[in-house]
């Protein structure tokens, strides 16, 4: 008799814990180095830069601020992982491409080949019609710098790699305040599912303010 009571209590406790944890949606972490001041924590944010999109317009970090956005680094002639990344990014674009204050920035790490015109044709052939997915090109050194120091992913020229560059296959999720909130393997469908769930969580976070 006492035993059953004990078990019932335990079961009740577990149930309660479950309900509470369900009611509290998970909050995404903020990635990157932090600086803790006396009363405040400063988080790493995407630094300023200037690149051109597939229509030849200048895009800077100011255009990204105020948007929840996803970034990846790629190049149009990349034979290995980029095609899969683009297939997966198409899924993200399909789901969120028409949502307000959302954007996708695919940044080329082979800007000598990937000129504005090349990116324009690439995006059209990929079937991207909305404005929220932009393809960016510019100065090689500032792009590699932006990848490494801004988005904290690897990207470098390497003549032994397929296509001549090594780069991360990550999709990087950034919030409206330019803070990095997550990294997802853009070559794996299940990870991209996770990304799409987290975008929704992030949207809620801003709605709640």
């Amino acid at each position, binding site marked *: 008799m006492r035993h059953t009571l004990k078990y019932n209590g335990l079961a009740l406790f577990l149930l309660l814990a479950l309900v509470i944890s369900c009611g509290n949606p998970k909050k995404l972490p903020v990635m990157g180095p932090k600086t803790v001041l006396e009363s405040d924590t400063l988080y790493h944010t995407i630094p300023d830069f200037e690149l051109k999109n597939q229509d030849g317009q200048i895009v800077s970090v100011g255009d990204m601020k105020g948007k929840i956005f996803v970034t990846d680094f790629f190049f*149009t*002639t990349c*034979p*290995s*992982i980029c*095609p*899969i990344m*683009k*297939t997966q990014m198409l899924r993200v674009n399909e789901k969120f491409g028409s949502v307000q204050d959302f954007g996708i920035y695919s940044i080329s790490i082979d800007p000598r080949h990937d000129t504005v015109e090349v990116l324009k044709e*690439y995006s*059209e*052939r*990929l*079937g991207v019609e909305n404005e929220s997915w932009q393809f960016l090109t510019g100065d090689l050194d500032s792009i590699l710098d932006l990848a490494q120091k801004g988005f904290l992913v690897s990207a470098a020229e390497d003549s032994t790699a*397929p*296509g001549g560059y090594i780069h991360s296959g990550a999709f990087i999720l950034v919030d409206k305040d330019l803070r990095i909130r997550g990294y997802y393997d853009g070559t794996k469908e299940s990870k991209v599912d996770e990304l799409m769930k987290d975008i929704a969580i992030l949207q809620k976070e801003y709605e709640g303010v």
Partner: protein
Amino acid sequence: MKGYRPVLFIISAFILFQCTDAKKLKKDRSVSHGLALYTQLCVQCHGEDGKGLGTLYPPLAGSDYIRENPDSLACIIKYGKDGPLEVNGVLYNQPMPGNPLLLDDEVAHLVNYIQNAWGNKGEYIAIDSISASLQNCR
């Protein structure tokens, strides 16, 4: 004398049956090797379903190019392809990388796979004729 005829008939029918069966077996085996290679080397662009991606990467499923140019497939797979190329009425123009390290039998498996996957229908191509085609790549 007459009594031999049915026996002969049965024996030759049996041999014939065995031969076609052996050929089908060879083809099936080649196609399944081809699938494994396809998953490593081609799927990222042409897709699991062989439908390609937008107008960047052309489809292999139902491709008129594959149907009409069976002899050029080995060269494309081994040495890649550049410049404009029309498939099912759409013009594609992206470089496809080659796979120069593939052996002739691996190329044959890939050709057999893409000619017989996704509803495509093709004859079994033997390794000899692939080796011959590979002599004539530009």
